[in-house]
């Protein structure tokens, strides 16, 4: 079918088109490379960055902070979400507090985290975890609460215990929701790690972006941004791929496979 392959052709074409427009704009209007370097220059700068060993240690640091922060958020988010989803009075009691913490701009906590956890990667791990925690927790609660009444009836008729109902029904029902929370969470964890690096420390791609800017090397800064984008995409799609293995039964997985 046409629809099946159209996106395979159209999406790369669109990307090529955007790069061409970018190049044309920079060339025609003679834009200063301090404002916006052309795609060719950015590509060259990226290759230069990738030829330097220290770039890889910066990438490694950012990946470490993001992944460890994200995994902490996943574990704590599912545990908290599971408990709050099951114990309604506790959720009602804590809800104002949760909403308050959720609305608070977590980035504002960075100075505090630096005081508590130092300029090293730990403060970034904590920020990434705190920022990614909320969507995972709230989605876990939602997933547990949204068990169909018919499914609850089945477990009730089978005289299942609270733990059995949690293990075999509520948690399973919550999995697609948790994965959606994780997709949001991995993006937020990446942002958390990078913003943390912007504001304090001497390691990671976020620090590199600030350092290149301070050196007025805008082209390299774009190269760093390009690397950050690639990194974000890899992490995001890793989580998206997880869906196929964790919920092979889900309709969204099946329709993605069939189309």
């Amino acid at each position, binding site marked *: 079918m046409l629809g099946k392959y159209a996106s395979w052709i159209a999406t790369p074409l669109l990307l090529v088109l955007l790069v061409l427009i970018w190049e044309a704009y920079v060339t025609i209007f003679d834009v200063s490379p301090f404002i916006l370097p052309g795609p060719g220059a950015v590509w060259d700068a990226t290759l230069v960055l990738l030829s330097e060993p220290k770039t890889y240690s910066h990438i490694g640091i950012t990946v470490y902070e993001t992944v460890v922060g994200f995994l902490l958020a996943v574990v704590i988010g599912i545990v908290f979400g599971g408990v709050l989803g099951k114990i309604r009075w506790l959720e009602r009691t804590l809800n104002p507090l949760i909403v308050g913490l959720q609305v608070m701009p977590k980035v504002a906590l960075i100075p505090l985290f630096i005081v508590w956890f130092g300029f090293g990667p730990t403060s970034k791990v904590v920020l990434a975890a705190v920022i990614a925690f909320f969507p995972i927790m709230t989605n876990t609660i939602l997933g547990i609460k949204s068990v*169909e009444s018919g499914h609850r*009836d*089945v477990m009730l*008729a*089978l*005289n299942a215990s609270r733990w059995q109902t949690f293990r*075999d029904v509520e948690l399973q*029902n919550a999995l697609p929701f948790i994965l959606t929370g994780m997709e949001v969470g991995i993006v937020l964890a990446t942002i958390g790690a990078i913003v943390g690096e912007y504001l304090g420390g001497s390691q990671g791609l976020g620090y590199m972006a600030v350092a290149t800017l301070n050196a007025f090397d805008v082209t390299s800064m774009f190269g760093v941004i390009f690397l950050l984008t690639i990194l974000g995409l890899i992490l995001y799609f890793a989580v998206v791929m997880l869906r196929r293995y964790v919920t092979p039964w889900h309709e969204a997985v099946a329709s993605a496979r069939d189309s």
Partner: protein
Amino acid sequence: MTSHDSVAQTPVTRALPDPMIRLTDVEQRYKTRDHDVLALTDVTLDIGKGEFLVLLGPSGCGKTTLLRIIAGLLQSTGGEVKIDGTPLWTKNTRNDTAMQELGVVFQEANLFPWMTIEQNIALPLKLRGVGKAERLARARELCATVGISGFEKRWPRQLSGGMRQRAAIARALSTRPKILLMDEPFGALDAMTRDAMNLELQRIWMETGCTVVLVTHSIREAVFLADRVLLLSPRPGRMDTLTEIEIDRPRTTYVQSSPEFQNYELALRQRLDSFA
């Protein structure tokens, strides 16, 4: 006069010496904002061992409520339910011994989408701590019983509505319950599938020898399946008449065009129409 006058419809229920299910003065009230609603009242009935009882009635007669009370999904606000001599409730606690005798099939198959068909069927055994090999063997055996062999490893969404309902019946049968409770189990199926499922259910019931209580609003289905039909009248739901269906087993689809079948149908239809 037509011959349907000969159909025995008794308003009273006789006590059985050793009933599978005994309902005594069962009553259900709902509290709404400004008043109590009486949904079901004065239900006193003995259901015999191995009997196929059908609860028939118009919508709002409380037949589903009554089934949910027998299934232990709802504690009645009055009266008592005994399963094979054991009270279903002691104060506000459900009795495990009584619950273990029950298998329930709902209008929707309510299979868990994250379990394969065999895992769904084996779930009640898993909850009782039966080992994996043993419960999956039982699930495969039941797939054969309900006619869905070959679909053990499929996901529920890959099956048709009729096949999903077959799997739901298999799940309810997995623990070899003495009682199978069915709430309009074929209501969501098309007419042809429904006829086939009625035949299958009769066969399964005859094979397992369990007691069945089935809720329906289809008179035809009621007469086809039942040993006795309990007709409930609406608002509040109460027992109207009990009709013994004396048609030989196993009944075939063609029995539906016989005069005796149509007599039962007509008698129940007239009684139902008198409620309106």
